[in-house]
């Protein structure tokens, strides 16, 4: 599949060829089994030599039509399907969904009083999962660029977090730990000790990561000034999370639209500053995640300090949960960005419609824009910096 085109049409890299050479466009399938597409993303790219002229993503390899499943399952049963959306941050997906159902209930006049202890547990566990998700993003990004070592270091710390989760809820990946009205179990003592140990050890590890990858000259050369996104484009494409913050927009729902008990904690929102290149390049997005891990660590530390003595973990909820007729769109800040659920209920035990706004879906769209005019190897770097999770894009 080639078509011939004179060379002048496309952007030539500066300082390159002086006289126009006739070149051919080449269509390449990148994926669905490409190691740097983080799952089963298929990109149909058109290249001119090494330059990419067009990127078209093809989705659906992981599609399970979770929204249809939602219409046949009760509100409680659907929690476990939200696990399977962003499988690297299943706790946060659970949380967002439970938050959406609780807020819908509240807005329709049903009292949902989440116990104080449960709120703290939610924050601690959610932030731990945010760190775990960013660790994978950090590790696999190194892998995309060609650095193998950081990946093993990242997985080691993630393992510690998963061990904590295993003690807390009995599963290592699909937790379904949050429930509408609280959490299912408390944090046992041995898990609490491990969390405290993790708090003590993590900053040193973070420094290590920074030494390993962040400052590495080869890494900086590969990512600085690559895949630059300005703030306006990001907003236009609906990007959220580290992608938006990497472009210098200070937007974080934990601060801007505080849910749960985030207004009680002291933390900053890191934004991209263009330290080594331009604001909004791949390095900035990567660095925002590194800084966010530190902020999450701060939140966990404060929450563990202030957590009230163990008590009730669930609000008083009816056994057969019914949501009064009404609708609502509620959202929360996930590691990948803003996740939201739009729930329409007509009074029954199952939602009439439950639409998911998944952050990675919107973050993916920008690849069509930013992929144009890049080298193929830079495209890999850009995809990695967007931190896509296909389970969440395809749902």
């Amino acid at each position: 599949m080639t078509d011939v085109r004179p060379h002048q049409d496309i952007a030539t890299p500066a300082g390159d060829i002086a006289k126009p050479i006739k070149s051919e466009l080449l269509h390449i399938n990148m994926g669905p089994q490409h190691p740097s597409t983080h799952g089963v993303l298929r990109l149909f790219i058109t290249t001119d030599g090494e330059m990419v002229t067009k990127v078209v993503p093809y989705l659906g390899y992981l599609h399970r039509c979770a929204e249809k499943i939602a219409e046949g399952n009760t509100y409680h049963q659907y929690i476990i399907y939200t696990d399977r959306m962003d499988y690297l941050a299943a706790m946060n997906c659970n949380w967002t969904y439970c938050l959406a159902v609780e807020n819908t209930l509240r807005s329709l006049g049903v009292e949902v009083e989440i116990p104080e202890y449960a709120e703290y547990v939610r924050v601690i566990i959610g932030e731990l999962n945010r760190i775990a998700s960013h660790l994978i993003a950090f590790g696999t990004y190194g892998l995309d660029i060609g650095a193998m070592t950081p990946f093993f270091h990242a997985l080691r710390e993630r393992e510690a977090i998963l061990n904590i989760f295993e003690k807390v809820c009995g599963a290592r990946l699909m937790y379904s730990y949050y429930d509408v009205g609280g959490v299912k179990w408390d944090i046992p003592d041995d898990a609490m000790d491990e969390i405290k140990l993790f708090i003590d050890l993590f900053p040193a590890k973070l420094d290590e990561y920074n030494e390993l990858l962040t400052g590495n000259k080869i890494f900086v050369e590969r990512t600085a000034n690559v895949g630059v996104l300005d703030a306006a484009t990001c907003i236009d494409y609906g990007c959220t999370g580290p992608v938006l913050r990497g472009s210098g927009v200070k937007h974080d729902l934990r601060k801007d639209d505080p849910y749960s008990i985030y207004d009680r904690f002291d933390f900053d929102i890191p934004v991209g500053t263009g330290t080594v290149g331009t604001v909004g390049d791949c390095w900035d997005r990567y660095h925002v995640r590194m800084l966010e891990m530190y902020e999450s660590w701060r939140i966990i530390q404060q929450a563990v300090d202030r957590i009230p003595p163990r008590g009730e973990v669930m609000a008083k909820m009816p056994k057969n949960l019914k949501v009064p007729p009404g609708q609502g769109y509620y959202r929360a800040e996930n590691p990948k960005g803003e996740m939201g659920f739009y729930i329409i209920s007509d009074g029954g035990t199952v939602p009439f419609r439950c639409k998911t706004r998944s952050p990675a879906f919107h973050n993916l769209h920008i690849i069509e824009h930013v992929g144009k005019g890049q080298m193929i190897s830079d495209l890999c770097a850009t995809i990695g910096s967007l931190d896509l999770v296909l389970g969440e894009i395809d749902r």
Partner: protein
Amino acid sequence: MVKFVTDIWDTFSTVFKGMGITARYMRKKPVTQQFPEERWALPDRFRGFVHNDVPRCTSCTLCAKACPVDCIYIEMEGKGKDRRMTRFAIDYNKCIWCSLCTEPCPTNCITMSHDYDHSVYLREKLVYEFVGDPVIPFKPKKAAREEEAEA
């Protein structure tokens, strides 16, 4: 020219910094486990294969209703006093270890066990039958009364 030299210097210095970390870890004990020989201790809440303690099952089908993927099959015959449970099967092909079935059970007879490695060659083998011959469902009230009578 200066930039050229500093670039080279930066490259080597940062690479060797990373190498230093690797070298530090070379002297430490590995964090990995050799799985089949060494096994980690499972926490209490570990969610393994679902197990049903049939003698205590009242065959109320609450668990089957709670299951989001409908993988518990309960069949009964007869009415009233003659009611018999002829089948209680769990399809582990479908089960997702969510533990939702354990929550509504009135006698806590369905539990998450600590088994996790049941590899089989055929998918059909993963449909576990818990009831062979038809059994009389457990009646908690009657059992309590009998216990009282014995005491």
